[in-house]
């Protein structure tokens, strides 16, 4: 469903800090997959999302989404099909609007934002049902401003809003990293439920190795702008946290060796 081919991306072009992240990145995301993505800082996980979502433009290469080249489509037009939940719970909701108003807007995604009433009262029951399924008691707080909610509640709401109108692709950008362990677990459960219920193709970046192994059916590891690990199904299931740590260490060691060879 999404195919990145021969992607090249440089940062700080023309400065002493010029940094080539991707030389020739190729990746094919298939319909219905739930991919978890891991990698150390600066490995290219975030840029990967930014290039898919249209926040950043690649220097070279093509992005085919359902057979169409979307490399030049602006971010807001891509987001009609590609939903994204950020690490920061504040990014997915509007704090000075109420829960009801936020949900109503999410429901209207892809339709016209015209002069009809912002809140459609006939959807009230539908929203209450959706909120009830979160088990956070939000269904009784429909008229509270979202700014008064906790980070976990806001992230649950962000997730609900991102999937309110079924997206074709869901990008989860370390969306549990800013939460406490208990809330983080709750959000992961919710994620798995929503994704399987609505059958959404999903890519999730995470720092949590256990999460990366427990969730999803394919695992990708980035290192220095390259995919160093890409496992599916049985191979992924057999993997343990220790294996991943060993892989990390091996990569870092190689990196240090390379450096010392050059310096030496």
């Amino acid at each position, binding site marked *: 469903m999404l195919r990145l081919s021969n992607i090249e991306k440089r940062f700080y072009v023309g400065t002493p800090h010029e940094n080539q992240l991707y030389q020739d990145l190729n990746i094919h995301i298939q319909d219905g997959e739930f991919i978890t993505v891991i990698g150390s800082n600066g490995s290219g996980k975030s840029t990967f999302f930014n290039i898919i979502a249209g926040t950043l433009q690649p220097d070279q290469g093509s992005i085919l989404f359902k057979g169409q080249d979307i490399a030049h489509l*602006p*971010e*807001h*037009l891509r*987001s*009609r099909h590609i*939903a*994204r939940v*950020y690490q920061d719970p*504040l*990014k*997915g*909701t*509007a*704090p*000075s*609007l109420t829960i009801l*108003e936020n949900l*109503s*807007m*999410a429901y*209207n*995604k*892809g339709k*016209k*934002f*015209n*002069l*009809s*009433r*912002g*809140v459609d009262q006939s959807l009230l029951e539908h929203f209450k049902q959706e909120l009830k399924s979160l088990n956070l008691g939000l269904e009784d707080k429909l008229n509270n401003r979202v700014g008064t909610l906790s980070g976990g509640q806001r992230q649950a709401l962000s997730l609900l809003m*991102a999937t309110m109108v079924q997206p074709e692709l869901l990008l989860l950008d370390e969306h549990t990293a800013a939460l406490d362990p208990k809330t983080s677990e709750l959000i992961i459960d919710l994620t798995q439920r929503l994704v399987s219920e609505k059958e959404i193709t999903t890519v999730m970046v995470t720092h949590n190795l256990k999460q990366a192994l427990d969730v999803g059916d394919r695992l990708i590891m980035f290192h220095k702008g390259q995919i160093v690990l890409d496992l599916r199904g049985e191979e992924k299931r057999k993997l343990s946290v220790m294996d991943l740590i060993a892989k990390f260490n091996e990569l870092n060691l190689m990196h240090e060796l390379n450096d010392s060879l050059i310096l030496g």
Partner: protein
Amino acid sequence: MLSFGIEVLNQGLAYGVLAIAVTLTYKILDFPDLSVDGSFPLGSVIAAVVLLKWGSIPLALLLAFIGGLGAGLLTGFLHVKLKISNLLSGILVMTGLYSINLMIADNRSNLPIFNVKTMFTVGAWVEKLPLDLQPWVTKFYSTLILLIVIVLLKLVMDWFLETKLGFLLRITGDNPQLVIALGEDIGKTKILGLMLSNGIAAFSGAIAMQMFRFYDISLGSGIVVVGLASVVLGTSVLSFMKSWKITTLVVLGSILYRLSISVALALKLPPSNLKLITAIIFILALVLNNKELRPKFLKGWDKHA
């Protein structure tokens, strides 16, 4: 005393229209728009010229509003399409409009409109009223007209802010990322908000000019601060009325602001100190608005709402 009160109220209401315009950019879009300093007198001069040439009040108000829409469009274009910072876009449009306003007035910096009918001119019908009623109607006519205008505007704004498009504008100031996530072009939303705000500001300029029966190019200088002071006064001093709509609060803020200015003048402060007084009132309102700086006796001011 009564005429002092009426004058304060009238000015507060006329500039209350401006306060609503400024609310739209500062409070809702989170866009510090200085172009209002140019679009306010733009509305004044357009209305003055139309009244002098054709004598049509509705046309004067309509064209003033449209002129303001144009000014807002320009600010939005500079910021969104040419990627100029929001403050600078406003300053550039404000500066450019100074010359445009002069051009519209045929290179004159003021136009008196003493001899033409304005929206505040009492018609001949007043003579048909009972004799003892006539002086009262004449006295309160301007206030009545202003009240009708401001209530209508407030209701329209309240309605607009509850529509889907209105929600989108509110989200633009609240969380721009969410506008993009909703699949909408945030640039367009900003331009729309700026157009509306400047249109209303120009409309306010047209009303104020008719109240003074005089256009002067300096009508607009520092007007954005006046509008902003009203907004801050309305939302800080009156913050205990939390359940009130912001459109009501800022109009009350505008009346409060006029009252403070008038009191200062009544205390025999020279009019040349006016801008200084405005700045001081503004600072006071900001301090009141800041929970940490708020004087002790005012702590908990807005808690009992």
